[in-house]
């Protein structure tokens, strides 16, 4: 690769990192305004969402959210919707100013995503595991119609406790659904504590392989690697793909990182100020993941 190409890639990555940082700042701002909601998951997934919507890996058009040829991004763990909302707003699906209406009466930004009111939302979600089944259904329909649309479904690791996940995983494996990619937010926390204490999941990789899926593990804060993984997932033939994205809950805000108590809690004013200050000044910490 020429120095010139490397420079371009580096510049693009820099821009993506800045976008992810802005998304994180908006998440903090939204949660502070809403006075309720989840902090750790949305912050931890900001890099993955940036890679999906800004990394040139999906077919979509924010100005035509109903475009038939778009790939479908299905958020199954609906409680991390602040990161989806912030990402969609920055991508141009709706005005960024609308983010501050999160969870308020009359808003299009419901506490958990509601299909049909906000552009870019592909399905209502909240009760866990249901998004994966719907993603499988979309994939089946596209295959029946010989359409090229890809389906990416985002799930949480705690969500893997649900029996319905494995019903959907079995069916996708049976049907060799190579138009389906699941991205699991492997941040090791859920409401009651660490996933391996609440209900051990390991080895997730072995489980998915046993169900006929192709498994890719990735650092969920390395945008370049996430983009690679998604591109790779599209190249895998006759198998659904699961990308296990290892993330740090609360990523970017020091006092939230790794602490499961921030799973379902918003910051107060003082905490939000500290968080925003860190994000604005310590952005380099996140950048360092790539170097």
């Amino acid at each position, binding site marked *: 690769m020429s120095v010139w190409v490397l420079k371009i890639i580096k510049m693009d990555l820099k821009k993506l990192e800045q976008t992810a940082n802005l998304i994180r700042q908006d998440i903090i701002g939204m949660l502070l305004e809403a006075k309720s909601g989840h902090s750790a998951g949305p912050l931890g997934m900001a890099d993955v969402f940036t890679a999906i919507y800004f990394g040139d890996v999906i077919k979509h058009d924010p100005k035509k959210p109903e475009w038939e040829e778009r790939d479908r991004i299905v958020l199954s763990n609906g409680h991390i919707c602040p990161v989806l909302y912030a990402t969609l707003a920055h991508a141009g699906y709706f005005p960024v100013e609308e983010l501050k209406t999160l969870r308020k009466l009359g808003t299009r930004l419901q506490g958990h995503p509601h299909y049909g009111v906000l552009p870019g939302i592909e399905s209502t979600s909240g009760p866990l595991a249901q*998004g994966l089944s*719907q993603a*499988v259904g*979309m994939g089946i*329909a596209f295959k*029946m119609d010989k359409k090229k*649309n890809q389906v990416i479904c985002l799930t949480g690791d705690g969500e893997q406790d649900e029996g*319905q996940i494995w019903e959907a995983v079995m*069916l996708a494996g049976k049907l060799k659904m190579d138009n389906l990619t699941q991205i699991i937010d492997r941040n090791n926390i859920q409401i009651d504590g660490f996933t391996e204490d609440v209900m051990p999941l390991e080895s997730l990789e072995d489980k998915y392989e046993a169900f006929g899926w192709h498994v890719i593990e990735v650092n969920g804060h390395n945008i370049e690697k996430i983009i690679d993984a998604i591109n790779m997932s599209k190249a895998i033939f006759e198998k659904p793909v699961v990308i296990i994205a290892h993330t740090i809950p609360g990523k970017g805000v020091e006092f939230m990182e790794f602490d499961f108590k921030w799973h379902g809690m918003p910051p107060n004013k003082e905490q939000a100020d500290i968080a925003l200050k860190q994000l604005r000044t310590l952005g380099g910490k996140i950048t360092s993941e790539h170097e």
Partner: protein
Amino acid sequence: MLNKDAKLVDNLLDEQVIVQKPTRDGFGEGSVLAGKENENVVMLCADLTDSTRAGMFKKEFSDRFVQIGIAEQNMMGVAVGMAMAGKVPFLSTYGVFCPGRNWDQIRVNACYNNANVKFTGAHTGVSVGPDGATHQALEDIAITRCIPNITVIAPCDYHETRKATLASAKINGPVYLRFAREATPVFTTNDTPFEIGKALVLREGKDAVIIGCGSLLYKALIVAEELAKEGLEIMVVNIATIKPIDTETIIESAKKCGAVVSVEDHQVMGGLGSAVAEVLTKNYPVPQEFIGMQDTFGESGQPDELLEKYGMGKEAIKIAVKKVIGRKK
């Protein structure tokens, strides 16, 4: 006297010669007709392909049939996903599993999304018989009709099931279709009118009205005929669509007769009788008696034995009618 416009079968009152046919046959045939009319109609099944008659669709359109395995929660999610991508999915299994087992998926995926899915519950009511209480869906009307956006239909026989199946594929949004198990009397005909949301007066009368759904309506017609010999004119109304309910016909019949007996093979709490009472209490209160399961589970037995034991037989209906007439002011 029978409503001529309902175009019921000629030999209606002869219990010995009336044709008996399972409602699920109507579903199988209706789904094939729907599949022919619309190439986006698809069928999903949870390992009960032949029993639910989904096999008739599979035979005709094998590439539009998805075998989900024994996973009703996943089946509902998958169906909704397919609907989001333009399909019109039918789901087939038993009522105890759908809506029994996957209610959360029905509420959030199908109804809150207002997804275009048509789910069917076969083998409902105590008249499922020998399989016993675990397999007798007796709460399905109650747990579906309370969800916004849904349409709930409980057809009365084979013909009406076929028409309801075909009609449900033509409206947008989630529909629950409730079927019986064994062969039940075919007392309507090809020409009997059917429209989603419209009740049908089967028999005219003035002393009391039996408002019912499902195959028990046949017993209601026999009871009405027997009571006619005692000088009582009993109206019989078929409420095939429990939601949205035909309030106009219910209010009219209450005004005309002044007393109601609701009849359903379902728990009396939250079912058709409750839906009728909700309409009348608000608009035109009259005495009402409730025929149905009285807050108890069923058991194994032959369908008619069970209907007798649990107070849904002809004698029980007759007693309820006389009682409600006695309560009129």
